[in-house]
């Protein structure tokens, strides 16, 4: 059975609230059936607006959204059959947990026995069996969250939307809920569109991540690709930690280029979004890709002075003054080989040119 690769399709969608500013610009996005896709971005980047358009609470100013090949712009929210988990859970405070879960089934005129069965099943899925008669106010934040998830799934929707559902939970609970939601998704295979501004949440849970900024999808790819191969400096900056060098391309070749930095030194980089000599660029390098005092042969080797050492338990973060960049961060595993890391020492830093990605200038 082949899955529909365009189960949800945003086709040239624009959205403006006031007729002056476009919140979402020319959005084209295909979501496959059964996929867990995350819309990740800073606040105001348009990700929640996209979700609201999909749910039907906002209408696109231009373009069309398709659900299973049917345009849905003119279908009111209650006829779309899309489940939604809200940021503040939006449980009905005057109904018990059972009544909350039964609400979507009752409005669909399902008979009482089936309702009982479905509610039971949904509650056991989020391990809350036995909580039927509690009021939402008597539940903890994590339990309320699980009820909200169960309620969004109980009527077997085609798509479930989640709008920063874990935002109000504390860190430990948030992490365990991440796994729980991921497992629920895996076991029932529903299509999930998840919105968050928390990158670790996005990396943990998703099949694919759409990074939003300024009303546009900057990059849409799997978590590992997003981290290892960011296509522009916004994504590189937004996902994970990142060391940058600003400079100008001097020796452009197809798979390698030289970049002249402002202090005069030259580094070798991997050309991603530069195309000729003279292009301005920002070179991005992940902290764990640069090694100190290594015996491996690498094509970038420079000396730097240690400015700051921060102990992190399993690793140490070292801030180095390197090639005029005083904010160059290194992650050094805490092993006996690296005992000479002290403030003021000079060390050798090396990296492969393949890991130094020459992206667009900021």
């Amino acid at each position, binding site marked *: 059975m082949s899955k529909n690769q365009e189960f949800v399709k945003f086709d040239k969608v624009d959205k403006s609230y006031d007729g002056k500013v476009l919140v979402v610009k020319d959005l084209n996005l295909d979501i496959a059936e059964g996929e867990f896709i995350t819309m990740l971005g800073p606040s105001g980047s348009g990700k929640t607006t996209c979700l609201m358009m999909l749910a039907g609470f906002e209408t696109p100013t231009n373009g069309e959204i398709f659900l299973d090949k049917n345009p849905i712009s003119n279908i009111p929210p209650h006829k779309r059959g899309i489940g939604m988990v809200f940021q503040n859970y939006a449980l009905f405070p005057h109904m018990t947990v059972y009544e909350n879960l039964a609400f979507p089934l009752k409005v669909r005129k399902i008979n009482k026995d089936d309702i009982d069965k479905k509610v039971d099943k949904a509650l056991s899925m989020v391990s809350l069996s036995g909580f039927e008669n509690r009021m939402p106010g008597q539940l903890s934040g994590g339990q309320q969250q699980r009820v909200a998830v169960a309620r*969004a799934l109980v009527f077997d929707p085609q798509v479930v939307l989640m709008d920063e559902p874990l935002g109000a939970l504390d860190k430990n609970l948030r992490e365990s809920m991440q796994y729980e939601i991921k497992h629920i998704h895996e076991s029932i295979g529903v299509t999930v569109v998840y919105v968050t501004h928390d990158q670790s949440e996005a990396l943990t849970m998703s099949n694919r991540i759409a990074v939003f900024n300024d009303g546009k999808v900057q990059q849409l790819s799997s978590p590992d690709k997003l981290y290892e191969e960011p296509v522009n400096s916004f994504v590189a900056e937004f996902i994970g930690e990142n060391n940058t060098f600003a400079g100008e391309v001097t020796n452009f070749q197809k798979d390698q280029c030289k970049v002249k930095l402002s202090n005069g030194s030259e580094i070798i980089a991997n050309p991603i979004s530069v195309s000729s000599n003279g292009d301005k660029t920002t070179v991005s390098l992940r902290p764990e890709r640069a090694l100190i005092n290594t015996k491996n042969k690498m094509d970038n080797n420079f000396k730097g002075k240690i400015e700051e050492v921060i102990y992190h338990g399993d690793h140490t973060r070292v801030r180095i003054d390197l090639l005029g960049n005083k904010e160059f961060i290194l992650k050094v595993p805490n092993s006996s080989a690296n005992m000479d890391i002290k403030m003021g020492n000079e060390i050798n830093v090396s990296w492969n040119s393949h890991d130094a990605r020459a992206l667009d200038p900021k």
Partner: protein
Amino acid sequence: MSSETGKILTTDGIPLEVSLKKAERKNKIKAFLLVAPLLLFLLITYIFPIGDMLMRSVDDKMVTEMLPKTFKSMEKWDGNEIPPEEVFEAFYIDFQKLVEEKRDGKLSTQLNYTKNGFKSILKKLRRKAKNFEEGNYKEQIMSVHKRWADVEYWRAIKRRAPAFTSAKYLKGMDMYKNEEGEIVSVEEDRRIHRVLWLRTLEIAFFVTLLCFLMAYPIAHLLATLPMKYSNLLMICVLLPFWTSLLVRTASWMILLQQQGVVNDFFVMIGLVADDNRPEMMYNKTGTYVAMTQILLPFMVLPLYSVMKTISPSLMRAGKSLGGTPFITFWKVYFPLTIPGIGAGCLLVFILAIGYYITPALVGGASGTLISNQIAFHMKSTLDWSFASAMGLMLLAGVLAIYWVYNKLVGIDNIKLG
């Protein structure tokens, strides 16, 4: 273990409970002193007047004190025939004393309330009594007027013997105790109070209903509109609040009278003929219109304060779960506004049931309420005990409504703001 916990000591060895009480006593005294002025104020302006009203409404000591000897001697009289000589003698002594103190006029007024015809025979008795000889007062008094020989009149006097009476309350319900002591209704064409009570309840009920129907959408708009517009709307709601009640009622008079603005408009658009302008004032219509407008903010504000707390995401959740807008409103939004509805309705109903100025000015004869009747007895007939009795009946009615509300909805399920 439990005996151990009873003896927990502080670090200094004082029992914990004693120490806690000592520490809190100061705060308790402070708190009491802070509320003491209010308590005193309530006592003086609220508890005491209501107590006084209650006393006044049942008080019937006046006649009891004026004829002490008569009532004492009447104790043995069975009331079947003309009372014996000692009753007449006691009555003569009491009456002579009143005449000396010039209080006989009051007696005649009071006895006349009980039975018509006392005024003239007491006046006659006063004139003739100067020439009475000692002894055989029965004969002498009975010869003054034939009514003194009528046992009915002596029974009427005896009815005034108790120091307390429920007569005022019965009168408020258009009932009285007849000569046999049974409670009966007055003749149908003399019943005025029952009509007024029913009308008061009817008007209060429909004003509450009208206020609710109008206030609900307004409050909803207020709670959901963007701040810029909702502030303006809020001012529109509150503006009448800041205007004097009298001014508002007077402006309704200008609007509603037969040559008024509303009628002019109706004539202009051809809705009614110029010579057939409807009467919209000095009847129930005027009372309904003016009271609804004046009491509207009392409904809007509690509703608004409750609606403001309802998260808009609840409605969205309801819709995303498949509820049509109506079902979502009815099952999700409406139940959550019940505390506000309860508060608003209770507030408006209680205010409406005792409303005075507006019905007095625009109500006319068919639009006045029980409060106007109370005011009438306070100011015109000076029958304060009757006014007190009706006031207390009104209070009892309000408390009854409160009790019913508590049984139906629960008083903790109320939110005034």
